[in-house]
């Protein structure tokens, strides 16, 4: 359960954004969380709800979390494979028998913020 530490990092990034943009409060933030980022979205939301009670500037903030699936590309044939379920991950091109390069699925990012 490291989502507490991740949620705390989200709050710190939001605090920097608030200060840099002279906002008084943040009302929503959109996050991208990759399927193999190692972060469970429900646990992150739960931890954020707990922390936001302690921090005035995010007390009404909502998180919109975009779950990013794993996509990987074969560097030989350029085919892109998408895995909706992490149980099905196979990081090998079935045609070329070469390891795939991950192009998405590890994201842990804040992409936009609304505030006033």
């Amino acid at each position, binding site marked *: *359960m*490291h989502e507490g*530490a*991740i949620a705390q*990092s*989200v709050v*710190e*990034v939001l605090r920097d*954004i608030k200060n840099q*943009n002279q*906002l008084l409060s943040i*009302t929503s933030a959109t*996050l991208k969380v990759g399927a*193999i*980022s*190692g*972060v469970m979205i429900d646990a992150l939301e739960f931890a954020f709800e707990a922390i936001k009670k302690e921090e005035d500037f995010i007390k009404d903030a909502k998180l919109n979390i975009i779950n990013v699936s794993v996509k990987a590309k074969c560097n030989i044939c350029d085919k892109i494979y998408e895995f909706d379920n*992490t*149980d099905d*991950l*196979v*990081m*090998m091109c079935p045609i070329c028998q070469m*390891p*795939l390069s*991950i192009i998405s699925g590890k994201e*842990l*990012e*804040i*992409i*936009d*913020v*609304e*505030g*006033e």
Partner: protein
Amino acid sequence: MKRIVVEKKILEKNDDIANKIRDLLDKNRIFGLNVMSSPGAGKTTLIERIVEYLKPQYKLAAIDGDLDTQRDAQRIAALGIEAIQINTSGTCHLDSSMLQKAINNISLDLDLLIVENVGNLVCPASFYLGTHKNAVLISTPEGDDKVKKYPTMFNVADVVLINKMDIVKFVNFDVEKVENEIKEINPNAIIFKISALNNDGLSGFLNWIESNIQLIKNS
């Protein structure tokens, strides 16, 4: 109401410190190895073997992360190298700021710095520490279903060590299935089958460490 497009990494501060650690290791030509596994998979025993084998030729230090006690660092220090314990007081992983504080307290006249992460197959995988390579252990009594249950951990591994091979016949563990699942999740990972306790099957892994030490020394 103001909308701001930011595109910021949530763990940016962790990564910034980790990048500083990487610079420090590179500047001092130190190979940094992060060892991760579930609790009881054999990290400390493996590190004891690494120290016994490499100490005659190389300068080593270890940093051990645990929720509590000095036990792991004491075991490593008993072999005659510098070992520092980080007590995370409940935190389930090491982050780069904890590691940075520990590194500030060791001599950097080293060839190899071993970081023993907190025993946990989930959380440590999310926190980049600045070390060069990740070694992940899975031990046979844990069961052969772990690789696909914890894809993030096995995906970040450079080396996977299947430990406790000496008791494989007494536990329900299909070695071939585990090897195949590791290759599916991470075709680039090097797999070694070992018994750290009995000092079996370790030569390949020890050679891998030595070649990394030499690569960084000569970089």
